[in-house]
């Protein structure tokens, strides 16, 4: 089942630069998208979300962009900080499927000082 895909397993960025994490989906019924950050031995931590009626949502250093026609979303982190180093998961839900989240495989972000 590859309904949500994160094609880059890892990303390395210099501190202070922009990190761009990408996510693609195939299910056109998805109408809500979330990004989670996960450190080793911890659960996923909610970062930011976006509804399908929007194309951008911003919260501090984090911005999520949604391109519905391309079935693509991205998370921008600027400026990147070493503490941002973690695995980032995108997840999607369909209002008709009881809010169950379908996760991508994750992208490991490494921010170098």
């Amino acid at each position: 089942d590859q309904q949500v895909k994160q094609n880059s397993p890892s990303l390395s960025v210099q501190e202070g630069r922009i990190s761009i994490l990408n996510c693609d989906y195939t299910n056109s019924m998805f109408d809500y998208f979330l990004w989670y950050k996960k450190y080793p031995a911890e659960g996923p931590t909610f970062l930011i979300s976006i509804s399908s009626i929007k194309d951008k949502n911003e919260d501090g250093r984090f911005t999520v962009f949604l391109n519905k026609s391309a079935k693509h979303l991205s998370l921008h982190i600027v400026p990147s900080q070493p503490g941002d180093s973690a695995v980032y998961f995108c997840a999607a839900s369909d209002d008709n499927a009881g809010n169950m989240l379908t996760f991508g495989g994750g992208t490991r972000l490494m921010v170098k000082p």
Partner: protein
Amino acid sequence: EPEVTQTPSHQVTQMGQEVILRCVPISNHLYFYWYRQILGQKVEFLVSFYNNEISEKSEIFDDQFSVERPDGSNFTLKIRSTKLEDSAMYFCASSEGQGRMKYEQYFGPGTRLTVT
């Protein structure tokens, strides 16, 4: 800040034994979930629970699994007869609401289940 808690952090059990994983969701949340992540694989949805009933479940959530809210604070996942392939991290999550209001799900730290 309110958080979801889970116990134990690590559970080792023998194949065929029953295990109960425990979670305390955030206190004003009404919807509860279990997910699991097998090592090296994606986080997978198991079940959602609202108003003392299962609202959705995945194909993984077969007759060996059950969930319960035994009191006003705990939410449990029971695996009746564990199999080797049940070894995974199990995450509990909760949210204030569901559906059109689109409430975020907050996850606990997980229980690592090892079946030997």
